[in-house]
């Protein structure tokens, strides 16, 4: 015999489980991309107030006294894990049928837990204890149990031999058939298991093919399949709870080395490497969330020494603020790197060593400052971003990709031979005091330099991002300044027309 646990309104129940005060309320769960959120699940109380699946959040807001919550995949994941745990408490043979459904092989359990009715009751009670309100059904085959749990409320034990009769009144939607099957059956006026089961199987085969026959079999509760037991996925996680809290980072190196070493061994046994390590440090103060770091690697690695060094460099940059009492490390597994070096390939540092060097540099200057500068596609002056170095071993593109995704300029850029001067830019630009005559700069002073402007070329106007709050508008001039201390010099100055301030932007060499 088999049992099935089905959690009706799973999305709602998953949320209520973490927020029990919602239990008595009409609740609508919405999902989608804000602001277009639609109801994806709801409880009975909400249905009675007029909430329907697919309704927009806006419409639900107009209904009286309905609580609205965003769908939570974390809570659903957690509820599902709890559901599996609950099932596993009864039998090692558990099928992970769907998020809201699990099936259990009850073979031999009667000697442990009593009659099937008693087993079902205990499963029911146990599920209630984990915060979920289930339907539990027991039947001679897993599919019947699953359909009975989805179709009947509370606890149902379907005696062997009565399955077809018992399921006859259930609506066909419980079978969860493909939409086209459902449409055909509804056109035929077939709405229940019973009505479908009455149709001759050979005629169904002629019309709906083998998929139809399979459905028909399920509607007759004549399933003969065995359970498809759930296997836990591979996880490479190691945890160490410390007897004494660690305050300094140095002792943490030893702890991490141990954990990472174990993980790497396990990875090797499974012929895996990792490209992502999660480290969670539980802190010695109640209520303070753990300190978590994620180390992402550009290539698969299985070298514990390298990993520990990288992790420690990262932790030095982002140390925990409170003493650590528990360390958890988890490696996300991936296929190891296999490289066939080319005979003519340019000699390059070992990628692992290069990664380590970059990590060291990042530790000093900050991660956001390591990489190749890339000019942004905008008229906004001096706009660039730092693009992370691409790994030569995994990427054929040049390490530094200037303007790789820059679209062609419509206005057309002048050819490079028009610019023969070198321009050294002041970063940040230096605020200046400028005197004008007829709108043309004639005198300037900035950071110790002051003098008259003997030649001014401009203005060169640019403005943009007018739809944003940080729009810009400036008037540039190329000027030759004659100062007593530095003689003649050619500079670029500009006026920020929004802030109404002058700046010296750089000097032409």
């Amino acid at each position, binding site marked *: 015999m088999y049992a099935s646990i089905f959690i009706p309104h799973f999305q709602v129940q998953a949320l209520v489980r973490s927020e029990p005060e919602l239990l008595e309320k009409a609740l609508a769960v919405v999902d*989608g*991309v804000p*602001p*277009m959120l639609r109801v994806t699940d709801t409880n009975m109380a909400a249905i009675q107030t007029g909430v329907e699946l697919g309704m927009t959040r*806006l419409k639900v807001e107009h209904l009286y006294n309905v609580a609205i919550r965003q769908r939570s995949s974390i809570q659903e994941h957690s509820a599902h894990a709890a559901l599996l745990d609950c099932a596993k408490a009864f039998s090692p043979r558990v099928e992970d049928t769907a998020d809201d459904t699990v099936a259990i092989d009850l073979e031999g359990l009667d000697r442990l837990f009593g009659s099937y009715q008693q087993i079902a009751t205990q499963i029911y009670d146990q599920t209630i204890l984990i915060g979920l309100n289930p339907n539990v059904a027991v039947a001679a085959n897993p599919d019947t149990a699953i359909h009975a749990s989805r179709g009947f409320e509370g606890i149902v034990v379907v005696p062997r031999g009565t399955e077809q009769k018992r399921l006859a009144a259930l609506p066909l939607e419980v079978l969860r058939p493909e939409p086209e099957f459902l449409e*055909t059956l509804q*056109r*035929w*006026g*077939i709405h229940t298991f019973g009505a479908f089961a*009455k*149709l*001759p199987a050979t*005629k169904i085969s*002629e*019309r*709906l*093919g083998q998929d139809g026959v399979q459905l028909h079999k399920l509607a007759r509760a004549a399933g003969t399949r065995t359970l498809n037991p759930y296997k836990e996925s591979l996880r490479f996680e190691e945890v160490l709870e410390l007897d004494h809290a660690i305050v300094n980072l140095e002792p943490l190196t030893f702890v991490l080395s141990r954990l990472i070493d174990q993980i790497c061994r396990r990875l090797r046994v499974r012929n895996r490497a990792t490209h992502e390590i999660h480290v969670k440090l539980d802190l010695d103060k109640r209520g303070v969330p753990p300190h978590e770091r994620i180390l992402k690697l550009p290539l698969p690695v299985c070298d514990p020494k390298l990993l520990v060094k990288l992790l420690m460099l990262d932790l030095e940059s982002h140390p925990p603020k409170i003493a650590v009492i528990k360390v958890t490390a988890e490696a996300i597994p991936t296929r190891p790197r296999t490289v066939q070096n080319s005979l003519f390939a340019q000699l390059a540092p070992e990628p692992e060593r290069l990664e380590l060097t970059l990590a060291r540099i990042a530790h000093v200057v900050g991660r956001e400052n390591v990489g190749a500068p890339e000019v*942004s*596609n*905008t*008229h906004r002056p001096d706009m660039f971003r730092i693009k992370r170095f691409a790994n030569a071993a995994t990427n054929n593109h040049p390490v530094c990709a200037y303007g790789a995704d*820059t*679209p062609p*300029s*419509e*206005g*057309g*850029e*002048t*050819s490079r*031979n*028009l610019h023969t001067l070198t321009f050294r830019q002041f970063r940040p630009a230096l605020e200046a005091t400028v005197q004008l005559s007829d709108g043309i700069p004639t005198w300037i002073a900035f950071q110790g330099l002051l003098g008259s402007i003997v030649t001014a070329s*401009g*203005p*060169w*106007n*640019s*403005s*943009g991002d*007018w*739809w*944003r*709050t940080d729009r810009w508008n400036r*008037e540039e001039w190329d000027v030759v300044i004659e100062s007593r201390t530095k003689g003649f010099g050619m500079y670029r100055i500009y006026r920020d027309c929004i802030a109404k301030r002058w700046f010296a932007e750089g000097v032409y060499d």
Partner: protein
Amino acid sequence: MTDYIELHAASAFSFLDGASLPEELVRLCKELEMPAMALLDRDGVYGSARFHQAATKAGIRAHVGAELTAQSAATYPILVESQHGYQNLCRLITRMKMRAQKGEATVDARDLEELAPGMICLTGGSTGPLTAALHHGGMEEGRSELQRLVHIFGHNNVYVELQRHFDRQEEAINHRAIDLAREFRLPLLATNGVRQAGRAEREILDVFTCIRHHRTLQTAGRLLTKNTERHLKSPREMAALFRDFPEAIANTVELSSRLDFTLENLGYEFPRYPVPDDETMTSFLRKRTGEYALKRFQPYGEKQRKQIERELALIEELKLEGYFLIVWDIVKYCRANNILVQGRGSAANSAVCYALGITAVDPVKMELLFERFLSKERGEWPDIDLDLPSGAQRERAIQYVYQRYGKLGAAMTANVITYRGKSAAREVGKVLGFDSDMLGRLTKLVSAWEYQDSKDTLEAHFRTAGLDIRHPLIDKFLSLCLGLQELPRHLGQHSGGMVICQGQLDSVVPLEPASMPDRTVVQWDKDDCADLHIIKVDLLGLGMMAVLEDSIQLIRDHFDEEVDLAHLPQNDEAVYSALQKADTIGMFQVESRAQMSCLPRMQPKCFYDIVVEMAIIRPGPIVGNMVNPYLNRRQGREEVKYPHPALIPVLARTLGIPLFQEQLQQLAMITAGFTGGQAEGLRRAFGFKRAEKKMIGIEAELRTGMQKNGIVGAMQDQIIQSITSFAQYGFPESHAASFALIAYASAYLKCHHLAAFTAAILNNQPMGFYSPATLVKDAQRHGLKIKPIDITRSDWFCTIERPAVRLGLRYVSGLRKSAAEALVTERGRAAFASVDDIAHRVPALRKDELVMLADVGALNFISPEHHMHRRDALWQVERAARRSGPLLEGIQEADEASPLDMMTTEERLIADFDGTGMTVGPHPMSYCRDEMNELNVHRAIDLQHVPNGSMVRIAGCVIARQRPGTAKGFVFLSLEDETGISNAIVTPDVFDRNRITIVQGKYLLLEGRLQNVDNVISVKVSTVRALDVTNATTVSHDFH
């Protein structure tokens, strides 16, 4: 003042490459005191007509030109020097457009060489050929490009263009261009490469750039403008900018003086009609008119003869003989090819047109205003619209014109599609990077109801949707949406306007291929063509003409009777009785809710009453409060009086109330001393899209005129209101008379040949006011039997099985015409034996089509011996559609009874409405009549016996919801039950309380006070309730 003329400007008619309308550029040009300006739109002269009109009014000289895209993507700015140059430009653009896909046209170098005479080429700004060459190959390539331009256009016709937008790179290019100009001894020319009127329009230009490149503002990067400098600058600013090159400024004036051509001397000539050698067009027209007049006018007396003579003299004086002969020729072609045709427009006032058979209204008998037709003083051109059956017949007539005058001799007029509320919101939203859901939401916020109450502001909608309009992005969205309004989006083709030209039309205006095959379209819309005195002929498709034509054919085929629309019995009792009872569903122009509520009060008794009925239910007379006074006077409840004694001759036949455009024109002429030309301006304003704006100016002129004539105070206000309200659209009398003829014909056919009329109207859907479901129910109530779709009998179209009508396969949802035709052809070979047989012999039928045929009961009749019901058929279809392997292919299975139950009534209703949009069985309301009786619900037919003012309940399927702009927020509902249609009026407050139920409810139960005024029955609703009658999907004709 400094002399400078802007010779390189583009308008929004560069389609997404310019941000301002031509009129706005002209306005600013005038403000900046520039005496002339050139408009160079991208690959066309789309905006030049409007630019010319606005410039002429402002006293500015409008130069013509275009920017032509080369294969290299550079654009050649071309200015037109002479008429020859203009003709060459038009031909050049036509050639490039005709050989390329839409949006991919580029100018061919050989064409350019051939057609360069009369044109002047500028070297262009940042997108010009010189900049491109300098970019690409430096001075060397720049030199050879300049050499090429000089070779093509001649040394005197190339100007090196300098633009200064405060941009370093541009200045660097300028320096090289100046060096080259000196080397080639070419003149410099300052321009500003204008793409927007003022600085503020830069945002619109950037939005357009994004739309053009399918980018968002965030991702468009350097495609966007660098600054706001591409606006129209004053001569002083330009002189300051080019103070180091004063000759570049001076040359603009010199070049402008060289540009002789304006659209004033377009060189358009209407084609000549080929006549025998011994005839002139004048003599030919005279002879034909004389011959036909004898037959057409019964009797042909002195009055008729005089009018014809008067018209012919004027036609000859205006040299319009060719035009009349050509229109006559089209009509002749239609008659010869059994295409129903009827002329209207101002031609309907013409005795010559009536004599030639172009129109069907006798203007002498109807005493129509001759001045409306042609006037020498006004210099206007006649306007003849030909109504043709919509669809293939109309296309035949259009193709005849193309064939007769050549692909480059005739074309459709354009229809400029502009940005409106929803389209602007959608595009702006996309450009601002809103996701699709947000876009959908914002677009929906742009209210679609015709009437917008005070709560219907966009701000209110945004607030309701939880969007804060103070948020900068939302604020920007709103302002950009408003900015985009009325700007051209793309060019479509006008529904029927054709222009024809003597010689080649492509030398008058560029032509382009239309999206429809075998059609070409000119770059100007019908107003532009009219402004430039290009005569157009409107070949308009009218659904009802197709219905009339089809009805006549059906009557001929099935009843062996010949109906001649020109000689229908006059004053037919059945027709007027139906009109008086407002029993007019399906009849032309008198079937709308508003018309139906007017007819019982109007009580039409003669043809002229129908003419009035056509004109009275229009926004103009409604807004001008002319309907009630007219009806009251007609019923003797109000004294007939005139605003001014001088108006008695004008208003006598409409009882002192002006109802027609002509009357309004005469009103203006008599009371405000308008000249014929001014009155014509008034008429043009009536028909103009942006009429209200034009009307403001005209109102001032009217008031001044009336003041002079001593018409002041309330009388003046009343006359002004009558005239200005026609800005909301009203009918000319001749037009109303033409429509009245069609209305009468449709009423006659419905009353006397219901089967043919019903089949024809069902075959021409969608058209008219009501859904096929309502038309079918109405026909059934009038005693016509409508037979269901039957695969053994139905054709694609509905047919007549005397005395009944058989529904056609075209009503099976999702069934392709090609599949249906394959089925009918195969059926012709041998009757189908089974569903399996159909699937076998008609492989074109897809499974979903077979399923739909079974679902609507069309397969029930294949094997009568089996008494197959719909579910049996569905059962068979599922097997028949599952193809067996080649081994079993030849084995056919006979139909067998299925194990499935028959459909219930409700299931059948659902299948009928889902699959055909209607039911030929009982009306859904009839199934719940007992329940309705218990609720004291009155049937539609019973309401006439209920005393006025009683509280009643009505219920039915909602077939129409309207919230007209003229009704101040009132909503009108029409409910259908098994006995007919009942009407309800919902006040704004009741609507507000029940908005969702009224808008979404398919079946409603309404309670309210019955109003029966002169047999016009409606219920003023106080409570609204949704009814659960059926889950079948019914259709309502909603104007919201």
